[in-house]
């Protein structure tokens, strides 16, 4: 059965899943949900997914949400090389350690910066509060430093050695996101820079394909009004 894949390519976990599907040659039908246009808030969408979040997949009438859960499921069900999420118990526990940390440890602070400093001012027309700006920028920097100084401290090609795991895709796609509002976590972080280059090289052409829209938004250094219309 073909997988039905619901996504918006400007969403980090959607890009992760897109890459995973492509790299593993899993065939899927695309259902593009444009978050900026509020497609996820329509009644029709809410009937399929009442919690209004992308990505999700549907296969044989079963809906599965949450990028991490979906990838674990596909690793069990499809013919996926073991390195993506090893069956060995201890390796799996180490990968889980990163994955479970990343939600509040990495994704949340980077997304918060984006919301506080860019999205909310555009939506409300008000300048962000100084205390919010300071808090969100410092949270983002702390999190990027934990990547550089802790998770990547052993100078391996990827987070868990010479082979890609699902953790690398999740990390890379979150780290790409704040470039859309002018902050590149690579700057001043040599390990993170090398790591991001390794992932891109290993997963191209799909990496660039997944990041195409993000790259063009970042390159245009959009005015605030333009960012709004693109999100």
């Amino acid at each position, binding site marked *: 059965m073909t997988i039905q894949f619901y996504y918006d390519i400007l969403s980090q976990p959607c890009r992760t899943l897109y890459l995973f599907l492509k790299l593993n040659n899993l065939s899927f039908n695309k259902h593009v949900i444009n978050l900026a246009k509020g497609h996820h808030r329509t009644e029709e969408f809410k009937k399929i997914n009442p919690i209004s979040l992308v990505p999700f997949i549907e296969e044989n009438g079963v809906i599965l949400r949450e990028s991490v859960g979906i990838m674990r*499921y596909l690793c069990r069900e499809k013919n996926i090389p073991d390195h993506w999420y090893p069956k060995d*118990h201890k390796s799996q526990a180490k990968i889980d350690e990163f994955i479970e*940390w990343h*939600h509040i440890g990495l994704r949340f602070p980077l997304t918060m910066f984006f919301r506080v400093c860019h999205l909310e001012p555009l939506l409300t027309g008000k300048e962000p509060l100084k205390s*919010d700006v300071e808090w969100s920028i410092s949270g983002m920097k702390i999190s990027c430093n*934990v990547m550089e100084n802790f998770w990547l401290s052993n100078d391996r090609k990827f987070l868990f050695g010479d082979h890609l795991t699902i953790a690398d895709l999740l990390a890379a796609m979150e780290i790409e996101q704040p470039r859309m509002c002018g902050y590149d976590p690579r700057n001043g972080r040599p390990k993170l820079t090398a790591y991001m280059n390794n992932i891109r090289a290993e997963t191209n052409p799909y990496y660039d394909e997944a990041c195409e829209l993000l790259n063009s938004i970042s390159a245009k250094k959009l005015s605030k009004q333009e960012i709004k219309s693109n999100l």
Partner: protein
Amino acid sequence: MSLKFYYDLMSQPSRAIYVFLKVTGIKFESKPTILGKLGHKSEEFLKINPIGQVPVIDDNGFIVRESVGILRYLCREKGIPDHWYPKESKAQAKLDEFIEWQHIGLRLPCAFYFKLKWLEPRLTGEKPLESEIERFQPLMLDSCDLMETFWLNHNKKFLFGNHLTIADLLAVMELEQPKLCGFDPRQGRPRLAAYMASVKSETSPYYDEANKIIDKLASMSKL
């Protein structure tokens, strides 16, 4: 003893693991790591977890951090009854759906509300910032509503049927936390109230044991 457990009962995920270890009868050596006494900043603990967070386990020299990872690891390694985290692939994927959602969907708003309103004022002596509370309070209310109207939108005893899963322990411990600052998610949410009562009675007496400290603090702040 081979399994060491580093925890603080003030911490939601620590309580989830505590109840799990007790209910499943896994023997462990207790390593209380009290955040209020900076136990998580001690040199000894930072060797075990450089990120400085509890809970952590050390299973015969193998260190596992992150509550979800710890619970999944214990279910694979310790011959735990299947209902806690079913091996069947689709059932597992459904559990993962909740577990991965709850980090930002439930834990984050409840824990931030607690941190802003209860913890930080006690540490700094300063009043909480209203602008930040205004950000997290509505998120917390939304996520409690989503528990009531979406995740518990069925007539089952627990999130995934009539047996407990690791998802239940994670959920209830996050939902208990905001009572420290006067918010009880059960109020006005009958399904959530019945659900939390079911988890409590099913895991008795360990549920109350795990929540002993926050229960006491909550009743003190009411006075």
